[in-house]
């Protein structure tokens, strides 16, 4: 294999991609890095600040709180959406005319723009005029997501579950459909119970797609902004202020570009780190 001819001109073919990536990723990222280590008072005058903003963000209670809120939210929606998605996928028909009906119904929430989802749920859950809000209050439960933190959380989680469980369903369903019939027939002959079929055939065969599903749902929910912003605006108080909402408040509300840049870099590294750990762990299991 050593008779390959090295032609340095081949590097020119990489150039267009390099330029594209530079403009949509590297350059914007570098401006953020730039802001994160400097202070500015306008007029494009910058003062070197070193790691001050990073220290400030990492030591601030505000960041800690929104970070914990974010973790709690992501944990909750993963704990609900993944099992629910698998359960729905298992109960969907695998053959026949209902397949496409189910698939379209499942895909519908995914097609709705995020701010529309937020607005829909906002109105849907309003205690005085919303269908859901009126119904809950009609049952004698005091529910007002604009004033009660618990109600605000429940509504936000419910909205996310409604919006994104379908993604898990579709991925899990694709995994299920790829299992050859012979596995089910063999399981029948081996006398396997429905649970054993799930545990030893369906779940292992869905592992790869579920890894992707969890990864996607983790990233998306960890960066969630539009839906809770439209639904609750981060309130009541700061109770549903997740990382992105907080970041926008700092950057555009208070115009503290330095701390905002430092925070977004920390934020980015956290997402990257978690994804990397998760991916490495699952892939290592795979190769064993």
């Amino acid at each position, binding site marked *: 294999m050593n008779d390959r001819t090295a032609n340095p001109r081949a590097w020119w073919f990489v150039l267009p991609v390099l330029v594209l990536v530079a403009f949509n990723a590297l350059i914007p990222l570098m401006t953020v890095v730039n802001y994160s280590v400097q202070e500015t008072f306008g007029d494009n005058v910058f003062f070197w600040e070193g790691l001050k903003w990073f220290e400030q963000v990492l030591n601030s209670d505000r960041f800690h709180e929104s970070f914990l809120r974010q973790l709690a939210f992501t944990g909750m929606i993963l704990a609900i959406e993944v099992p629910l998605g698998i359960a729905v996928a298992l109960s969907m028909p695998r053959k026949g005319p209902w397949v496409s009906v189910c698939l379209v119904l499942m895909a519908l929430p995914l097609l709705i723009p995020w701010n529309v989802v937020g607005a829909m749920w906002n109105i849907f859950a309003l205690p005085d005029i919303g269908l859901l809000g009126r119904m809950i209050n009609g049952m004698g439960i005091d529910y007002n997501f604009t004033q009660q933190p618990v109600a605000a959380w429940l509504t936000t989680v419910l909205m996310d579950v409604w919006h994104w469980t379908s993604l898990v369903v579709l991925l899990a369903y694709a995994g299920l459909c790829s299992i*050859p019939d*012979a*596995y089910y*027939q*063999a399981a*029948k*002959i*081996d*006398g*396997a*119970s429905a649970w*054993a079929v799930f545990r*030893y*055939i369906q779940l*292992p*065969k869905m592992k790869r797609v579920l890894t992707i599903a969890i990864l996607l749902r983790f990233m998306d929910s960890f960066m969630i902004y539009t839906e809770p912003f439209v639904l609750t605006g981060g309130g009541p108080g700061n109770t549903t202020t997740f990382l992105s909402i907080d970041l926008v408040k700092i950057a555009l509300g208070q115009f503290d570009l330095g701390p905002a840049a430092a925070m977004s870099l920390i934020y980015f590294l956290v997402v990257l780190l978690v994804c990397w750990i998760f991916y490495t762990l699952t892939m290592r299991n795979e190769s*064993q």
Partner: protein
Amino acid sequence: MAKIALQNLKHSYMTRTTSADDWALKEVDAVWENGGAYALLGPSGCGKTTLLNIISGLLVPTEGRVLFDDIDVTDTPTIERHIAQVFQFPVVYDTMTVYDNLAFPLRNRGVAEDKIASRVQTIAKMLDLESSLKRRASGLTADGKQKISLGRGLVREDVNVIMFDEPLTVIDPHLKWLLRSKLKELHQHVGATMIYVTHDQTEALTFADSVVVMHDGAVVQVGSPVELFEHPRHTFVGHFIGSPGMNVLPCEVHDGSVIFADAVVTTATPPASNSIDGRLEIGVRPEFVRFDTGGIAVEIVKVDDLGRVQIVETHRDGYTIKLVVDEDQEIPSENPRIAFNPDYTRLYVDKWVVDHEQ
């Protein structure tokens, strides 16, 4: 152990049947004796797998009955039929070890762990899997995985029938041969009825005592390999078994004698009457055709030297007739004439043999 009887089995995958083509299985009647080794042989799409799945209970036939030891099991679920089935593509439970894979059918049936351990050891020994019992099943090669599939069938002691659905398709040729002899050995060892589905005549003929040839959703002949070779009851059997396949030549019947190419051909069984309705053909295997100066004049087109034998392709009136002759036999260069061995030359009407003995 069980005797299997299939009575008037018919199956269609459609909910409404309008023509004969809608039936995957047209009409199957068969009795398979306890402890026999049977092969279901036929081209892809002839209904072999359908028949197998009906026997194992994965499919319920549209019409007809399945009997195990004279007990009707047509509506009995798979798990109660005590059958084992090995599929075309190896099925292993990826996350389990080889040991757990083999133990799985027993655990599902609530067998005690110590009993399981001894059974798994026995089976692993039979299949040469002892050294890999602790390994994850997903890491094995295709033939190793197929052995596990087979082992899961053998591990149960109450198995009536073991069925193989083209089990060697994904196995390398040299391992195929090994695994096939293993199966044959197992059959003598275990004594269960075995049904082996294949489209490969070599596999069928080496494995089975009795070969069931299927064509277009129907059983065309059941017999030993020798019977199928010497006495094909249907022109399809002649074509499908043997290499090259049987010569099938259109003919006429006049005054009680069979005429092909203006010559009278003597057949094993003479036609019953002077005029027979339907398409008339004679069938004779290339092995039973010889050069004969007093025979039918032909034109030699091609000679294939296969080493021990030569295959000679000849033409007469636009029809191809093949001969198998010994390697040292000389092939006539001028005015070649051929003759058919009357004991193995048969008359077929609408593809079925004309035969009064049976």
